[in-house]
């Protein structure tokens, strides 16, 4: 049925000149005409707040939506580590090309060269912009910006604001946004959740939202719509994502024709605090920097129940140091995560539930002294102790991998436009720049690059072609029908009258997705998941209980729709993982590994972006392939031995 053609719209010419040439070739909207265009921006994280503020500065009429009570709550705020930029302030040989190369390689050669090169180019502008806004980055005594090194790179290019870089960057973008609100150029709608994307004649013309405080369902029309709504890590239920992070905006866009790409590319972060029991609602990340001074081990023997300090050296297995002598405890995220899974699956896990591995600082403490170790990691140790009641200065930390970031998302072209004209996806919501694995300190970079420096140009190019057209009024049948469908869905959920909460089904779904589509996947497991997920969904649709009404605040009603979308997405993740008969980055198929257990890519057959087209309820999606072309970097096998 499909008439979709994946045209990535990559500009011609040498890699280095493509973005500049493209900017020159794009159509402009003259300042007096900009205010005739309305742009809807959904989500106020780094990508959304940056895009909304910048488009408003340019003179467009912006309407901005968040389901939070304030734009500042978006989950970008929780990013700890830092943001990369190819400034080469440390004179250690960094360059735009090196950042580009590291990102392509880190993504295991599954990202577009042109997008990644542009990302590396604008990274330097991001730091300038953020400093001008007053982001309090760490400084050296001379007043210059400080940098640190981060995983997957051999240069120091990471800018940071203590362990709260995401918070400070988001507050910078939020403040820029609020200034535009005060100037009347942005109309801000908080507590307003997107529930549908509206199309007319194949083009995105607006959205339908529900006000989560009043229950009001209404439509908004715009010349262009930007989805900046984050990733889908909560498909696993337990993840480091915030409680409310969800896939609903992206998924409803998918159901309206936007292709969803690389759903199986999910990042599992190796250093999180293990789950303590069934009631756990989310997992907490402990910064990767801990691996600089901590040694990871488990007991050599099964059922070794001695406390860690009574297990002698000869009975300990420092498995990362053993398997990867050169990188040791600093092996990349995907490698370290899988290695932890192996030892826990063997039954050598530690802690009351035997679901963790030790991260031990005792050797560093005896080498560097308590004071130095505490100076470096004190805030993280405090956070750990608050959660576990154990002091890592005395007892080794227990850690285990957890879902953290999703590289997959809505397919976008070079202009960040989805396959629906007028509908864009920015930041984690799109699939574009990280390939099959994201490097540390690159998520913040991509969110801000898309929001401040890419979309404001490319959206203008699209709008220029619409000059003279007014928005489709919200009284148009396309909006009325969409609103009716949203109201009907609420009515249906409220009338089921089952016995279990939406939370219960989310937890059960998460267990399946984690078990079969988590750190390691195989054909049997994925096929099993593809039969068990629909069965569970059927039960969910018959037996979920949503109390109250659609008027006013109803958190169960908000949740149930999100869980329904996670069910459909969970299936797609498994289908995508099953299709991709290779291992790459965060996607590890057990059947495809080297003799020593490393990921084995299959460039011959799978050097493509897998973008799925929705064909309606109960019908399998259609796969479309965008071939990846490597003209500048030669794909190679990653090795960390």
């Amino acid at each position: 049925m499909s008439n979709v053609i994946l045209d990535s719209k990559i500009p011609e010419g040498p890699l280095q000149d493509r973005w500049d040439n493209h900017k020159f070739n794009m159509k402009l909207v003259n300042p007096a005409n900009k205010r005739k265009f309305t742009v809807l921006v959904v989500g106020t994280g780094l990508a959304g707040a940056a895009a909304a503020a910048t488009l408003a500065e340019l003179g467009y009429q912006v309407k901005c939506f968040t389901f939070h009570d304030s734009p500042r709550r978006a989950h970008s705020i929780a990013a700890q580590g830092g943001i990369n930029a190819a400034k080469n302030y440390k004179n250690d040989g960094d360059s735009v090309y090196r950042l580009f190369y590291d990102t392509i390689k880190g993504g295991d050669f599954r990202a577009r060269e042109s997008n990644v090169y542009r990302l590396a180019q604008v990274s330097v502008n991001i730091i300038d912009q953020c400093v001008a806004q007053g982001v309090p980055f760490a400084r050296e005594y001379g007043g210059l910006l400080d940098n640190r090194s981060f995983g997957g790179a051999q240069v120091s290019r990471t800018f940071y604001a203590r362990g709260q870089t995401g918070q400070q960057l988001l507050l910078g973008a939020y403040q820029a946004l609020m200034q535009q609100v005060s100037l009347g150029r942005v109309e801000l709608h908080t507590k307003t959740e997107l529930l549908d994307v509206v199309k007319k004649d194949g083009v995105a013309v607006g959205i339908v939202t529900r006000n989560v405080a009043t229950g009001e369902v209404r439509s908004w029309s715009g010349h262009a719509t930007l989805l900046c709504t984050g990733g889908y890590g909560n498909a696993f239920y337990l993840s480091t994502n915030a409680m409310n992070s969800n896939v609903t905006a992206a998924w409803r866009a998918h159901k309206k024709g936007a292709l969803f790409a690389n759903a199986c590319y999910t990042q599992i972060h190796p250093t999180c605090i293990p789950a303590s029991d069934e009631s756990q609602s989310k997992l907490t990340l402990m910064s990767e920097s801990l691996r600089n001074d901590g040694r990871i081990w488990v007991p050599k023997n099964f059922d070794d129940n001695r406390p860690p300090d009574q297990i002698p050296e000869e009975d300990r297995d420092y498995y990362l140091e053993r398997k990867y002598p050169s990188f040791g405890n600093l092996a990349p995220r995907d490698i370290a995560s899988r290695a932890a899974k192996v030892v826990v699956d063997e039954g050598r896990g530690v802690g009351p539930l035997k679901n963790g591995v030790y991260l031990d600082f005792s050797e560093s403490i005896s080498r560097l002294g308590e004071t130095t170790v505490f100076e470096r990691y004190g805030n993280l140790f405090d956070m750990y102790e608050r959660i576990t009641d154990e002091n890592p200065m005395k007892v080794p930390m227990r850690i285990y991998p957890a879902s953290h970031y999703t590289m997959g998302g809505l397919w976008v072209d070079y202009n960040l436009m989805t396959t629906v004209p007028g509908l864009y996806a920015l930041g984690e919501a799109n699939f574009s720049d990280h390939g099959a694995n994201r490097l540390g300190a690159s998520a913040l970079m991509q969110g801000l690059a898309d929001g401040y420096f890419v979309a404001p140009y490319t959206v203008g190019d699209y709008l220029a072609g619409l000059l003279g057209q007014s928005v489709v009024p919200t009284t148009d049948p396309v909006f009325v029908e969409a609103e009716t469908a949203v109201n009907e869905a609420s009515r249906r959920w409220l009338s089921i009258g089952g016995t279990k909460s939406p939370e219960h089904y989310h937890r059960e779904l998460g267990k399946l997705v984690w078990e079969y589509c988590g750190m390691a996947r195989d054909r049997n497991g994925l096929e099993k998941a593809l039969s068990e997920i629909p069965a569970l969904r059927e039960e969910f649709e018959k037996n979920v209980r949503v109390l109250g009404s659609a008027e006013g605040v109803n958190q169960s009603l908000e949740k149930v729709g999100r869980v329904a979308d996670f069910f459909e997405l969970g299936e797609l993740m498994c289908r995508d993982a099953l299709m991709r008969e290779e291992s790459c980055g965060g996607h590890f198929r057990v059947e495809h590994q080297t003799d020593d257990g490393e990921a084995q890519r299959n460039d011959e057959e799978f050097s493509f972006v897998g973008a799925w087209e929705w064909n309606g309820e109960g019908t399998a999606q259609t796969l479309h392939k965008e071939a990846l072309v490597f003209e500048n970097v030669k794909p190679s096998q990653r090795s960390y031995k």
Partner: protein
Amino acid sequence: MQLTLKVWRQDNPNDPGRFETYQATDVKDEMSFLEMLDAVNENLIEAGREPIVFDSDCREGICGTCGLMINGQAHGPQKGTTTCQLHMRKFHDGETVTIEPWRAAAFPVVKDLMVDRSAFDAIIQSGGFISADTGAPRDANEILVPKPAADTAMDAAACIGCGACVAACPNGAGQLFTSAKLAHLNLLPQGQAERFKRTEDMVETMELFFGSCTNYGECQEACPKEIPIDFIAMMNRDYLKSKLANRRLSGQKH
């Protein structure tokens, strides 16, 4: 352990509200306070009763969404800790725990334990920014920021906007929040051009919504990020200066 919860229930902003009592059974030490409430809510749903509405998001103590008065203390008994990071080992079996929303005129209750903190956004909107349109800036390292200034600005910028300071204040004052943002921006070289306009605008917007500060100091005790009231002193000094500076700038005699 088992706890008796006295929870504030209020159906909508105009409802007078009331306390309702629930039993929290099978509470484990490792649970966070909000996970304990999640469990209570699941039981309520299964019993056909509407769950308790409360706000939370990151559950890592950084987004500022959560915030409950627990036994009369904003964010509960543990110092420097948000509600989501408070764990049940701080409570003991058989205890009765009273849970209320933030109580402040500037934060009207939306439902149950959820309040409307948009007054904070109004303060930021009035001047809590440095004007720097995208694309114009010079190289980041052309602006030197002395390390002590950067560090103190960061101390202030750590504010998560949760509103505990307001809830803890007998006057419902917004000084700690406002002064933290002012200190962040006013301490940096980039923030100097708008310093006095920003100060005057933010302080006067704050006063439209919040009570007055009378130096109780409850705010810094309640602050989960332990932001000190020194910043309030700094704000007061800058506000006085701004009244003089802004008059001169607009050409008036004083």
